[in-house]
């Protein structure tokens, strides 16, 4: 069976549950005290989709999405600077991006549009976008209506699901949907010869100098 490696990157404000979603997907567990930065930076999971194996290479933000204050040089105003510490490398070659917000925090939904804009600017042109309204186990304190989020997702042709990393709701479904949306392998053959990863030599010769 053909194996395809698919890079997926996560976006969204700090604390919405990005790392928890990946942790649930890859390890099928939930850690309420997940370390905000140190933890898993690179997680993989292979799932079968039709007659292909999809190996998801999932990139977490490593905390580089954390907001800080900063003066905009052009507008000369102090504002919450959320995006630019994420390096372009982060988006490079991604087949899909999952943008996460927290259904119990209206503000994380308002900034969603900025993340989408950021992705359009820096992400690959044909990237599959998925929006996840996380923490849907906390309906009592819901601030974002499912309908509003769904409408917005539709307007930008993005996948939409409400998820709970805590209760394992819709996490696998989210990735299955991504598999479904990714163009089949023969639709866009890799162009112009890809690069390779550096590997250690079987035996590294030790050079001593005079």
């Amino acid at each position, binding site marked *: 069976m053909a194996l395809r490696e698919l890079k997926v990157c996560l976006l969204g404000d700090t604390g919405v549950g990005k790392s928890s979603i990946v942790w649930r997907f890859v390890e099928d567990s939930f850690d309420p005290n997940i370390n905000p930065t140190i933890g898993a930076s690179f997680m*993989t999971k292979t799932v079968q989709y039709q007659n292909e194996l999809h190996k998801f290479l999932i990139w977490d933000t490593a905390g580089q999405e954390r907001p800080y204050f900063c003066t905009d040089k052009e507008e000369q105003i102090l504002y919450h600077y959320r995006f630019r510490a994420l390096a372009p490398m982060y988006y490079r070659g991604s087949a899909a991006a999952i943008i996460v917000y927290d259904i119990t925090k209206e503000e994380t939904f308002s900034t969603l549009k900025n993340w989408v804009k950021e992705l359009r600017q820096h992400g690959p042109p044909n990237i599959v976008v998925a929006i996840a309204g996380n923490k849907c186990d906390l309906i009592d304190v819901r601030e974002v209506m499912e309908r509003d989020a769904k409408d917005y997702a539709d307007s930008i042709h993005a996948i939409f699901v409400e998820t709970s990393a805590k209760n394992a709701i819709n996490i696998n479904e989210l990735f299955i949907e991504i598999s479904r949306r990714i163009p089949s392998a023969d639709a866009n053959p890799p162009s112009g010869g890809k690069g390779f*990863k550096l590997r250690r030599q079987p035996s590294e010769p030790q050079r001593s100098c005079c």
Partner: protein
Amino acid sequence: MNEEYDVIVLGTGLTECILSGIMSVNGKKVLHMDRNPYYGGESASITPLDDLYKRFKIPGAPPASMGRGRDWNVDLIPKFLMANGQLVKMLLYTEVTRYLDFKVTEGSFVYKGGKIYKVPSTEAEALASSLMGLFEKRRFRKFLVYVANFDEKDPRTFEGIDPKKTAMREVYKKFDLGQDVIDFTGHALALYRTDDYLDQPCCETINRIKLYSESLARYGKSPYLYPLYGLGELPQGFARLSAIYGGTYMLNKPIEEIIVQNGKVIGVKSEGEVARCKQLICDPSYVKDRVEKVGQVIRVICILSHPIKNTNDANSCQIIIPQNQVNRKSDIYVCMISSAHNVAAQGKYIAIVSTTVETKEPEKEIRPALELLEPIEQKFVSISDLLVPKDLGTESQIFISRTYDATTHFETTCDDIKDIYKRMTGSEFDFEEMKRKKNDIYGED
């Protein structure tokens, strides 16, 4: 940001990002800031192309023939990685290589009498090369065999040469090599920029030639590697490593003041806030009063719509113009890459010419290189000062990196990193120290 850090790093150039990564991996609390809104400082790859035009104050926007601006990632400083070099070793030890994809540079060429020739570095290539006459070839072949067998730990391989005493000039004489062969051996294989090595003991030169051959043996076509999307990916990769180990990143942060008390750094002020620290790492642009100028480098970025002539249409290559060939003291380098490396629009090539400035008219100095590249669609010329710290930083605990020099490799950069590490920690640099200290990869590999 109102916190106490072990180390604050200013500037996100390659040197700063590698050091930031090493510090974070070793448990230091790091705050890393840059006044620019992008990663990389001087070692950034500029994108989109419009930004390059703006940076060099070229009037107007790039013409339509340049294709999509977003397809460009133009390095400001031309360099390649040696396949067996120190930077590759750092990438492997830190596993930052996981974030990057590389291609092998297709060819290495040397300039002789106005023409360029493929650098022969194996016996077979030397015999096929038109760079030398037949007898010269035989002698050069003998020399290469000697170098390949040479082992500084085994006196039986010395054949009457004392590696620590015999000057390289004498070795060339022993093998009866002519001036042209000496030129390309010293400059295109041993990669010396000047001829000062001729009177030094030969051991280092022989080992440099061995390094070249070993790097070449690794992937075949040439000893040089280049990362897809440009060299700017390198600092980003090490910044990610630092962030994974807890480093805090802030871009677009104007730095107002480096606060020093009793001669020792205690913090950095940005936008009215003070972050405290025990040690500071920065590039020279953040501490203009603590660095001095030791020279200048001229670099000319040239956009072409054709591969360089006589390179067999290589999509990437390096050309070395040995100083002797053009009556100079230091070599001129040309590094070329292209759309095959995701750094230029389809069908475009970027050739960067660089050398150490020797006269008052640096643009004239690089003319022989530009002639090899004609027709050139667009040129971007920069002349930058080589800045080095005035002191070791032992007292102030302010550790300043050196500006990137005219070499087109990362050897001197890696040496600077190792040196700063030693000054900061008091212990000798050890690649083992760069290894990740815990598992951060989950799932199947």
